[in-house]
């Protein structure tokens, strides 16, 4: 067993790794190419940084290519991203042309690589038109949508549909995200990497150092919400909940930590609003963190007694998964992928109002044993279902199902 797999075996279990190795044996030497739009930053890059070397270690010839684009390309793809998430955006004919021209240029650059592949995974909308530049392809081409596409802005989806529909298959994170397409739509929820900086065990003094840096008292009750400053994450609702609880638990502290909002005017406005509401209360910590503050976020989640994700709308909610991995019960909004992870009285509570969140916060601070038990259950649930090893298993299963016959039961000898 290789070193990387060994490290995951110590977390996920040797049976899980043996299972992956058996699947990998059936795919030895197969050429797999992943294509996305960035090498660093964002959830897709995070996943590929682990998934690609793991596939290589299992004996699959796996590579990762990145689309090179200009400013107008990324402006167009940002609109597409927002449109897929339901925002009513417009993509002009000029923007469409500029977008397709960049992808065509990339197709020439990647032609040899993609022509010799057995399976090509195209991640998200940015490289989606690539498939049209390979009309005589022999590989299986799969479009992987990482975005909450449950209610896309229709003109944007109609435009993307013409590319996506020509793929051999697509992958969505949840059943509700799937669309009307003429090919099989696989369902693979996202995952976290337990060995990444964001999730790895931290020394106690590092956690204490982070607490000290931000003036947090780790000995006093602490609730934490990690997410960007976005109205759908309801940071104002978190403060309302905190104030409702504070009457009963005066030393309560709350941390609202998210990425820098300097390039996002809407995010900046919400951050300003949150700061204004929090003004004068030293037990409310509003933290604007750089995009690479993974260990700081890890420490904040680990020092919390309860983690909140009081979203009003959510794709999958990987911050919930991260908190659960750190043995924390989560109080989350009753939306999207949070429903798949937070189960009332087992791994946390789902709520719909600040009052509901306040009630559950009080309950969990009162019921210490229950809080600990729920945290343990949350950790086990993530270990069994939402680690990168499960994600990898489903990719391998998908490749086997696509490259063998099309029946629902594939028996390999």
């Amino acid at each position, binding site marked *: 067993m290789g070193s990387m797999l060994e490290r995951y075996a110590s977390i996920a279990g*040797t*049976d*899980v790794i*043996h*299972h992956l190795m*058996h*699947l990998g044996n*059936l795919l030895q030497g197969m050429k797999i190419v992943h294509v996305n739009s960035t090498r660093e930053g964002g959830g897709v890059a995070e996943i590929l940084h682990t998934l690609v070397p793991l596939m290589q270690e299992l004996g699959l010839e796996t590579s990762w290519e990145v689309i090179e684009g200009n400013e107008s390309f990324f402006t167009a793809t940002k609109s597409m991203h927002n449109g897929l998430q339901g925002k009513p955006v417009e993509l002009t004919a000029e923007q469409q042309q500029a977008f397709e021209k960049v992808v065509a240029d990339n197709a020439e650059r990647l032609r040899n690589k993609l022509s010799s592949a057995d399976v090509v995974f195209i991640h998200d909308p940015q490289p989606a038109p690539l498939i049209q530049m390979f009309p005589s392809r022999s590989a299986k081409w799969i479009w992987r949508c990482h975005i909450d596409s*449950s209610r896309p802005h229709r003109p944007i989806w109609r435009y993307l549909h013409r590319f996506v529909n020509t793929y051999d298959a697509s992958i*969505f994170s949840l*059943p*509700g995200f*799937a669309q*009307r397409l003429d090919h*099989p*739509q*696989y*369902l*693979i*929820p996202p995952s976290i990497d337990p060995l990444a900086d964001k999730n790895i065990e931290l020394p106690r003094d590092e956690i204490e150092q982070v607490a000290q840096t931000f003036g947090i008292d780790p000995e006093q009750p602490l609730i934490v919400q990690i997410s960007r400053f976005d109205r759908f994450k309801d940071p104002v609702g978190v403060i309302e909940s905190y104030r409702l609880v504070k009457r009963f638990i005066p030393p309560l502290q709350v941390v609202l930590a998210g990425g820098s909002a300097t390039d996002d005017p809407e995010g900046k406005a919400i951050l300003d609003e949150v700061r204004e509401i929090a003004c004068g209360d030293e037990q409310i910590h509003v933290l604007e963190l750089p995009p690479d503050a993974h260990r700081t976020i890890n420490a904040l989640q680990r020092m919390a007694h309860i983690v909140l994700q009081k979203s009003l709308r959510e794709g999958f909610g990987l911050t919930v998964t991260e908190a659960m991995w750190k043995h924390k019960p989560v109080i989350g909004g009753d*939306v999207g992928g949070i429903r*798949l992870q937070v*189960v009332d009285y*087992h*791994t946390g509570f789902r709520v719909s109002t600040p009052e509901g969140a306040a009630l559950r916060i009080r309950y969990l601070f009162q019921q210490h044993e229950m809080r600990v038990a729920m945290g343990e259950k949350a950790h086990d*649930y993530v270990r*069994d*279902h*939402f680690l990168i090893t*499960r994600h990898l*298993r*489903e990719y*391998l*299963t*998908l490749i*086997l*199902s696509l490259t*063998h016959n099309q029946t*629902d*039961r*594939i*028996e*390999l*000898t």
Partner: protein
Amino acid sequence: MNMPYMPSQIASHGSILKPQPFIVRDCALIALATGRRAQNLKELRNHLLEVKAESLYTHFWGYMLQPGFEERDYNNDFAEWVRHQLHDRILAEQLAVIDPSEYENLEELRWEVIETIEHRLDELEVLNWSPPDRQFHFLYSKLVIFHTNRVLQHPSELPDAISDMSSGSIFYHVIDAARRLPEGGDDFKAWLQQWGQQYQHVQSRLEQVDPYFTSLTHLRHSLEIIIRHALTLNGRS
């Protein structure tokens, strides 16, 4: 269809042939969307009439190998949805009691589910609707089955082998076996039958395991304990 052992080892003249080795297999399941969604009971029934039978397999057994919470109120997706999204506790209980292993094939199971729903539809004056973001999504799945290169020669190897098995192996040899074997049951019990009367006691203990009310991890643990214990008793007698 592959079997982990040769089907029946009883020769035509009644004597027992030498038992075949047990080939440990594994499987992986992946879910797919069918594109069908239901928002009320009538829509659920109408889709059930048309959806491919394999969808029933996924909604009754698939949860065991898919990401999802194992300690659910009810053991199939239909009952869960009816209870939590349509708030019809009566029908949820009626659907939950349907044990898929009691039906010879998926078509029979399909008709049992449909008849249960239709009976309830006759009783209801008003249909409840689920919110748009909580519709029932009909899924189906693909099951990939493969060898693990592990072969057992004797029943005494079973407990250790089971404790090392993946959840996929347990699913294949217990859950999938019930659908695959003409006489039902699981592969372990079927293999032990080849050894004649000497493992009758172990087989009887295995018959008491109800895989429909447990997780694969717990099932693996239970099987290991039961077989280990029964083999010890066998050795003493």
